[in-house]
């Protein structure tokens, strides 16, 4: 029964998207996509729709409440497709106080866009958010989910992470070095809780590394 319903929904979306492409109604697209996404996403069927489904998902996101937005953000994460529409929608909640939604948005952002402002908003959250949980999860997103970065964008990310090694908050120093280790496989002896002089020695090694990295681009 469920299988048959899923099949019907799939056909409806294909039809709706085809109509949309031929000048049909946006509402028809949106209704069909809503059926696939909520209350819980049927990802295999959504994947089959291809990137054409993304604008409808972004519209649905923008008119949904926090719980559904979190579900849709997770769907963007799973798809991992670059999309200006998805980025625009998700960026609205990059500072939301809703815990679940914030985490889903932070994780999804790097998988829908490699724009500099996406990396910057996550770096800002990692460094300056008042909530340590959001700082920590922004770092996780920077470590694992920046899947579309170019070499130049990686350089920008590493430069800001190395700057964060001088942050007065020990937690920020700790998560910044973790992100660097995950990206590079190295930590260059940095201990976030070591005395400042010792930390500086390691930061200078990181800065030398960054200068060499930059010179090679």
């Amino acid at each position, binding site marked *: 029964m469920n299988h048959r319903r899923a099949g019907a929904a799939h056909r409806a979306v294909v039809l709706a998207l085809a109509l949309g492409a031929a000048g049909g109604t946006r509402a028809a697209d949106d209704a069909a996509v809503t059926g696939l996404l909520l209350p819980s996403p049927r990802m295999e069927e959504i994947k089959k729709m291809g990137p054409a489904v993304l604008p409808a998902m972004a519209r649905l996101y923008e008119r949904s409440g926090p719980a559904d937005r979190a579900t849709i953000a997770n769907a963007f994460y799973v798809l991992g497709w670059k999309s200006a529409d998805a980025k625009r929608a998700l960026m609205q909640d990059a500072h939301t106080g809703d815990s679940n939604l914030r985490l889903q948005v932070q994780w999804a952002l790097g998988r829908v866009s490699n724009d500099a402002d996406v990396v910057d908003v996550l770096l800002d959250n990692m460094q300056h958010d008042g909530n340590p949980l959001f700082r920590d999860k922004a770092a996780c997103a920077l470590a*694992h989910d920046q899947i579309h970065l170019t070499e130049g964008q990686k350089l920008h990310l590493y430069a800001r992470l190395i700057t964060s090694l001088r942050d007065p908050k020990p937690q920020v120093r700790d998560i910044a070095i973790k992100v660097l280790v*995950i990206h590079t*496989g190295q930590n260059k002896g940095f201990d976030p809780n070591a005395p400042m002089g010792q930390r500086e020695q390691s930061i200078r090694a990181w800065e030398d590394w960054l200068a*060499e990295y930059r010179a090679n681009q």
Partner: protein
Amino acid sequence: MRATAFAAVALLAIGVAMAGSPTDPAHVLVGYSFDDEMTATGPDTFAVYQAARGTVGLSSTFRLSGYRSVELRDVAGDGDFPELQGFFPRRDSGTLYAHFAFLTTDDRQEFNVALAGPRRFTNVKDGIAFRLQARDGILYHHSDSMPKRLFPLRAFVWYVVDLAYRIDTGTYDLVIREEGTSTPMVDRRDQPNAPHEARSAVEMFSFIGDPGTDESKVDYFVDDVVLSADRPVTLPPFAAPGRRRLFVDAWLTAVQQAGRDRGCPRAAGPEDFGYSLDDLRALARAAGADLMTALRALPNAAGRSPAKPAGLGALAASLEPVFDWQRGCDALAAGRVAEALAAFEEAARARPAGRIYDLSAIAALARLDRFADAETRLDALAASAGDDPRLGLAAARIGLERPDLERLANDGKDEGLAEEFFFVLLHRKSWTEAARFADKRIERARGLKLPYDLWVEHAGDAAFFLGNDAAARTSYEAALAARPNDRRLLTKLSDVLWRLGDTRGERSCRERVFGTLDRAGR
């Protein structure tokens, strides 16, 4: 033989480039000119992956030596990349010498070449040791965790690469020349390997298009691949194309090993513990750790880690089922079987998708003489993972613990018991008895109108070990008709066809598993 001779010639040619590189054929690990018959794919040579729309194949359009090279063509936006992936015996000390040549038809398109270890293509120790990347018209090597610029590439020019990788220090010398010139374009000495890690082992090479952005439309050519060691290497001769022992022998060894080893079965990867890579990434992320930390915490494929790794922090709680399993394995090895079973059950409850917990519990139940429970567990596992070859090994283990197995198996009704008995016969090398027993099971299943392709396969196994290759072929072909894409069956049929002298059939079956460089053969 011709490959070895070729390798010696190639090494002599590159000897001028890399002082101290061995030119003795006894040092050669692999050597491919792609001109001779040594292009058979297999687990001891190389595999060809052409998922999506990219292609990999022999070509005579461009070549550095002889009359052929390998052409890799990537297609942008097709969701995958083509790959020529080669295998050689793991090197974890000494120096590895690598020599190869490449030519690209479009200097703007990305492609990558790598040497990697058991952690495959990740930027960690025992992952990628050496990587060349062509991108936006520039050739880079990845050293000290960064892409380092080498030189602007030119299309339609052969570049000859010589690498001396010192595994103990994790450093390499890299020399690159243009075809026909003696002055190197690049001569970098003592470069840190990709992750800047000493003792980072290597066992595979890879030529691919673009693994990330899927934007590359590269069409490039590879020729004269030679890898050698700083000391003589002893390699068993090829038993058949692409493998140094027959597939079926490897499988039989595993069956017999299962019979001898009364401890835990070996884990194949994170899925065995009930974690997909996405699960592990999410758990690590929630604990503020990274995926590699989580992967490193899992016991390796060769056995068990001695203890829970330190420094896991909050991640340790998420991986508790793995540590329960390890505790159970230690207890099983020490003969405290009831304690072992309790630990396996605890792990299985926490992570029901973890197949290794059930396989281990089956071993413990059998050792406690709780055969009915062991079989129930095995049946449940078979319902969800019927294609896992370890189920046969688990059946053998139950059978080997059971004193009255033969009588019960010959009663006839219980398929599980029957298969246990068959594996016990294989374990004992009682081939004739195994063949008779498989035939009996086929007759019974036919009479009851039940599926019997598994017993046809087993009849083929017994015939193969008896040396009756014609009968084995008939059986494997019949079983394959029921399961046309079964990789294990394809490799077994490939073996038997080889022994029968049917080289065309052998190749066809093997290449359905490992791919082919021959465009006409697809």
